[in-house]
């Protein structure tokens, strides 16, 4: 049976076989599961209403083209149901003292304004709520309500009120959700809550954010309706996205037949954005291009790149399939400028094909900017709270990148996933398990097997 939070909190703080995992994306989920499966108590802290992270937003995963949420959701549910995992959603770590073996943690839990023990996730409240808000889950391409469940597979599957947009909290009127909630779960009086925890070690798995390509004026992001980011494309092409998976321009509902993917937007540049390679874009663009072709084999998919990063298992084969079987076009060159046709909204990409040695232009219905994975701005604050270092870019820093790729400068604090640089899902999952092993090592030797 699932233990209650109180039971987990009482779980012997002095023997403290508890671990704090910060961040509920795939890395945090895997680290939590590995530890909990061995009997450790895990406090999984997530600042949004649901765990799942960016992987929950992706359409397919490469190279197998598995539906992303379909392979992630069972793990999310496992986290929720696990007797040894305490989920702290809408929560942030605000204070940490102590050292390895005995960290004292204060987390601040924002009010959900929905009683978690009563809400069944039926969604009646969200249906009746009159306020439309851009949905974070839909990369703001779709709308949600002020009381909402971020996505159908959210964990916990419980509504939460976004106070910033709720009419009752802003203007003192409405309370429609309360009227329509048959379980009586709405609670406008909930207050922020501080929760004190005692843990042996800490795993940072706070992930990344996306570079905002508005800085690169010549690509016209936000100026031109049909220039979108790769994450927006993921939602657009996804069956649970704003167009139910139809490859349509949101601006004019026109079917998008000619789609270009631009690599290194905000990366590999000394001039603007970030100097490093973002590691995963070449492959997700290839996946996107295949999805375009799957939707309509007659459509055109072009990838503009500098160096095609095919270094992972099965990646070259995936690119070969895209090129040879699907007819995806690869052009070596970084586009110089994107222009918008003032009447049709179509785009003209000016580029240099560096292999052909010529400057050329190409028309597209939709341009997808493959933006860099960058450090979260709040890393600095968390690093200060934890006493760990950040690297030159603002990612969490490992103490010894060669021999100890997951340990920070503070004993007992580990990192995994994209919080310490761009990496793909398998690498994040691997590191999550690795961080779990290190956390387990730092707790105490298991009292088994020693007698031989």
């Amino acid at each position, binding site marked *: 049976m699932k233990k209650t939070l109180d039971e987990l909190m009482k779980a012997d703080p002095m023997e403290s076989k508890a671990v704090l995992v910060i961040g509920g994306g795939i890395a945090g989920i895997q680290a939590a599961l590995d530890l909990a499966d061995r009997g450790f108590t895990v406090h999984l802290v997530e600042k949004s209403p649901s765990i799942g992270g960016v992987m929950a937003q992706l359409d397919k995963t490469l190279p197998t083209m598995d539906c992303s949420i379909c392979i992630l959701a069972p793990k999310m549910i496992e986290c929720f149901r696990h007797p040894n995992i305490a989920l702290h959603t809408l929560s942030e770590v605000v204070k940490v003292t102590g050292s390895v073996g005995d960290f004292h943690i204060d987390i601040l839990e924002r009010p959900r304004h929905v009683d978690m023990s009563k809400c069944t996730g039926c969604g009646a409240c969200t249906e009746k709520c009159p306020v439309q808000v851009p949905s974070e889950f839909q990369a703001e391409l779709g709308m949600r309500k002020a009381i909402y469940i971020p996505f159908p597979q959210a964990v916990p599957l419980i509504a939460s009120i976004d106070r910033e947009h709720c009419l009752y909290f802003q203007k003192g009127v409405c309370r429609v959700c309360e009227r329509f909630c048959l379980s009586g779960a709405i609670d406008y009086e909930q207050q922020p809550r501080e929760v004190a925890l005692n843990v042996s070690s800490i795993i940072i798995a706070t992930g990344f954010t996306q570079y905002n390509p508005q800085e690169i004026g010549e690509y016209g992001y936000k100026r031109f309706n049909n220039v979108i980011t790769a994450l927006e494309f993921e939602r657009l092409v996804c069956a649970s996205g704003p167009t139910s998976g139809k490859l349509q321009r949101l601006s004019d509902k026109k079917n998008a037949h000619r789609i270009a993917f631009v690599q290194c937007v905000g990366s590999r540049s*000394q001039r603007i954005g970030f100097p490093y390679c973002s590691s995963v874009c070449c492959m997700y663009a290839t996946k996107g291009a295949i999805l375009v072709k799957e939707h309509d084999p007659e459509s055109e998919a072009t990838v503009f790149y500098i160096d095609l990063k095919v*270094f992972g298992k099965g990646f070259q084969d995936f690119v070969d399939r895209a090129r040879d079987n699907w007819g995806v076009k690869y052009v070596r060159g970084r586009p110089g400028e994107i222009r918008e046709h003032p009447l049709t909204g179509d785009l003209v990409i000016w580029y240099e094909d560096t292999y052909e040695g010529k400057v050329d232009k190409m028309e597209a219905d939709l341009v997808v900017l493959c933006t860099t994975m960058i450090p979260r701005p709040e890393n600095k604050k968390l690093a200060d709270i934890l006493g760990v270092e950040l690297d030159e870019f603002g990612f969490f820093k490992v103490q010894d990148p060669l*021999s100890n790729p997951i340990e920070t400068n503070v004993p007992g604090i580990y990192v995994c996933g994209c919080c310490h640089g761009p990496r793909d899902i398998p690498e994040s999952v691997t590191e999550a398990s690795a961080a779990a092993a290190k956390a387990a090592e730092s707790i105490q030797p298991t009292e088994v097997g020693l007698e031989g």
Partner: protein
Amino acid sequence: MSEETTAPRVGVFVCHCGVNIGGVVDVPSVVEYSKTIPGVVYAEANLYTCSSDGLNKLKEAIKGHKLDRVVVASCTPRTHEPLFRATCEEAGINKYLFEMANIRDQCSWVHMHEPEKATEKAKDLVRMAVAKALLLEPQEEPEIEVEPSALIIGGGIAGMTAALSLAEQGFQVHLVEKQSELGGMLLRLDKLFPLDRDSLELLKPKIDAVKSNPNIRIHTTSMVKSAKGFIGNFEVEIESQKGEIERIRVGTIIVATGMASLEPVGLYNYGSDERIITQLQLEKILKTGGPEGVRTVVMIQCVGSRNEERPYCSRICCNEAVKNARLLKRSDRVRDVYILYRDLQAYGTRYSPLERIAKRQGVKMINYQQEKPPQVVSEKDAVVVKVFSPLLDEEMTVKADLLVLSTPLIPTEEAGGLSQTLKVPLGSDGFFMEAHVKLRPVDFPTGGIYVCGTAQGPKDIPESIAQAYAAASRAAIPMTLRKVRAEAITASVNEELCIRCGRCEEVCEFNAITVEVVESGKMTTRVNEILCKGCGVCSVTCPTGAITMRHFNNKQIYAMLEAVLRGH
């Protein structure tokens, strides 16, 4: 047993799910209909069956109406079956006597504009679920003891890291290495990227720690001869070079056998000219203070990789070339170093900065295309390399004193044999194949066996180390618990129908089904219920229908089909 004599008593619980189901499907009419289905002795509607109130009602009904089969018509088993099963167990009935009808996804959601039809379909689904429920049998999940010890095959950086992590956590470890020394490929490398640290600086403390750890037993010049058993209970024979055999029992196995480096025979005049070497040979020269008197060095990338024969990218060669190019520049500033590459794989925050430093130091990068590879001619005073640069639209000629070929990491010769011994798969590239490319990167499909390091595919040292810790974490789970629960839904063979053709054995991914010779030379098909994951592939492959799956047997499925076709 009394269960066989008394008729099953089925209870049906239909969930409104607030308005989610109730807003479309006429739930009360589904309840009334359910009461008329033969075998159903009780039916009720719940606002939310999954709420604590709903679950309590379910438990009360099981007791009050002496139910021994439960059908919940609600949402998806993916999210809610575990909850309802647990509730049945709490009420004292075996959790496999529970069945679910998904009238939300399959009725109210997809037919939201056709409430009558959605209601009819909900009735159909309930009727099917009841038909199956009547034939359900209790199932047990056997519990297996797990030996808290591990076998790690391969004494390179990955194997040693995994061994130490497990030993630190208190587990007994057997570390098997085919060479006479621990260290693996790192013994052959000079400086290591990204920090240009000496490989021995990394290796030496690791080897010392392994050697001095009382929980680790090292078996050098040894190989795994055979392995039998399953998670928790593997019996392994380790054979030394002298032919001595030692038998050990371990609970888990980690494969960390590493890789080899391609010998590029026949490529770019390799083998016919001493001035043409591989990166690995260059490492050796650098290690001993060389190279002497070398003014111009050319490196060619993707030699023997990213081609038809070996389509994969070897991941580390670009970064190794960049590192060695920088070392060559550092030891002699006026030396010219060229890297001829196709796509430079300087990925992430670790390698991108090194590419820039190399360029700043004057390492010259020249792009070439696969269709126009560099041409190499051995002349007396130089190795002449001609390369067409598409970026400059020009063919260039470089007279090199040393030509270094970046060849890919390839699977070891022993990988194939070990794959058969342990019955774990290799991918099309010849490296060990993990259970799931995204979410199970260090597990094999077979429980209790894990993989790490370059045995799984080319990767650098930090990545190998991270994987080694990950494999240690995964292996530690069953070893800490000292037990695992096996799947209850497994295959079973009807010996009378079985013709021992062995097709089931061929298709089973988990080595759970085998055709064996028993005493008196008779053949029999045996299912190892611990290894079987209940996927059902054997069952559909069996030409005589001899294999059925527990909890999804033919009788149950036919009953469901009959129920839906019969109508009401």
